[in-house]
């Protein structure tokens, strides 16, 4: 097997391996359902029927009504529409021009909120604790003067912490605000019910659960208004212009339906593998910090940092062994800042690694990772120690 490295994909939180059900449905739709569903002829009617069926399937998966689903190009567009469209509609309804978000939201939420500042909105960022959980007391204070919109993710993409969305939503709605949850990490991966969450808007992205890339949806509770961001025609009930990406939408619906039938079995399996991984890491590597909430967290996500090590170098070392993971460090790229999520949670940013397991991950993958990492850490720590000694010597010479 010279020159042949087995590839181990442990980055489901960036994008999940494509689900076969979604791939097949999307491929078939790409040719069979080419027509514009808004036209009045046979192929168009077939496309319309498929679009309606996909809408119903997606709605059912989160306990919603079909007419409440707005198809989008993915999580970023959904979050942008929820924040910009929700806050603007709330202001038009004479609610305070104030948006409240948590410090660990995805940049698709944070940047959309910041952009509203130029338009006269005030943005309040609510801190999190060391587990990455939003501070509900600080949220309550932020809501004292009222707000138009509150946005809190259902689960964090970097450290996996699941947020108390239902409690936050109760506080926000009592203050008269609309509530958005970014559920990109949860829909299709853990059970999600819009009624249990008690929110008004929910964003989801297909590629995070094995559906196609470039498609997602925003759920808009009946009676709630959002100002469209994409303008043009009257599709998606005037909430999102542009021809529907039907093959991707059909693929998303098929993948989501398939996931609904398999996640009950998958969740305990992922939790067990993640637990194995955490225990193995703590045992093998001293000075290691595990991130996220100890119990309220996504099943397959393990986020940790290793002291005295550069995370990006670890990624390269792992990549050389065919292992794909992600890092929240920015040691080698001196222009970028460390992860805003780790910083907000007061977590160690150096040597950060995120391992995210999914549908096709196995205990063997976990074992390979646990074999590969400790020697890389040890070597890097040795190099760092030598560098530090060299720098100390150089400084003495200068004096």
């Amino acid at each position: 097997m010279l020159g042949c490295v087995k590839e181990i994909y442990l980055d489901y939180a960036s994008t999940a391996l494509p689900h076969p059900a979604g791939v097949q449905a999307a491929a078939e739709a790409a040719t069979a359902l080419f027509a514009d569903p808004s036209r009045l002829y046979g192929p168009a009617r077939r496309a319309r029927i498929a679009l309606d069926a996909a809408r119903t399937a997606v709605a059912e998966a989160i306990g919603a009504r079909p007419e409440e689903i707005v198809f989008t190009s993915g999580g970023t567009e959904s979050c942008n529409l929820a924040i910009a469209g929700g806050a603007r509609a709330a202001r038009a309804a004479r609610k305070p021009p104030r948006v409240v978000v948590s410090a660990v939201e995805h940049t698709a939420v944070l940047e959309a909120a910041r952009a509203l500042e130029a338009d006269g909105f005030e943005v309040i960022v609510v801190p999190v604790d060391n587990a990455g959980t939003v501070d509900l007391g600080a949220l309550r204070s932020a809501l004292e003067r009222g707000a138009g919109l509150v946005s809190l993710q259902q689960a964090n993409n970097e450290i996996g912490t699941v947020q108390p969305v239902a409690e936050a939503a109760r506080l926000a709605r009592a203050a008269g605000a609309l509530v958005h949850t970014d559920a990109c990490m949860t829909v299709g991966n853990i059970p999600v019910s819009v009624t249990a969450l008690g929110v008004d808007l929910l964003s989801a992205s297909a590629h995070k659960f094995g559906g196609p890339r470039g498609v997602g949806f925003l759920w808009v509770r009946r009676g709630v208004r959002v100002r469209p961001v994409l303008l043009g025609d009257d599709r998606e009930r005037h909430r999102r212009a542009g021809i529907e990406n039907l093959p991707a939408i059909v693929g998303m619906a098929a993948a989501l339906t398939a996931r609904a039938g398999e996640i009950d079995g998958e969740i305990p399996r992922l939790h067990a593998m993640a637990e194995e991984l955490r225990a193995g890491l703590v045992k093998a590597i001293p000075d290691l910090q595990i991130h996220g909430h100890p119990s309220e967290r996504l099943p397959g996500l393990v986020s940790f940092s290793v002291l005295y090590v550069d995370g990006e170098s670890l990624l390269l070392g792992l990549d050389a062994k065919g292992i794909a993971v992600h890092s929240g460090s920015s040691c080698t790229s001196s222009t970028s800042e460390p992860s805003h999520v780790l910083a907000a949670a007061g977590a160690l940013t150096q040597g950060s690694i995120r391992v995210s397991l999914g549908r096709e991950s196995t205990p063997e993958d976990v074992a390979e990772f646990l074999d590969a990492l400790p020697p890389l850490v040890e070597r890097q720590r040795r190099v760092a120690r030598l560098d530090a000694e060299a720098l100390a010597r150089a400084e003495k010479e200068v004096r």
Partner: protein
Amino acid sequence: MRPDRITLDCLGEVCPMPVVRLSKVVAGAAPGTIVEVLSDDEGAKVDIPVWCRMKGQEFVGEEGRPRGWSFLVRVAKTP
């Protein structure tokens, strides 16, 4: 060089070096010594207080400088 205060110039060094050097100096310093780290690394800004918490050292505070920050750590014990 005063024995009760050590300044570590880490300007221009990227993570994890400021923390690696801090840990080395603290390991060889007497309890009560103040170690001042000069750094312009955004990662160090987060990691130095976290390191203090992990290692039972006292993070005294930080101060903005024309270039980067000055972080003060009081040696509580030898790690």
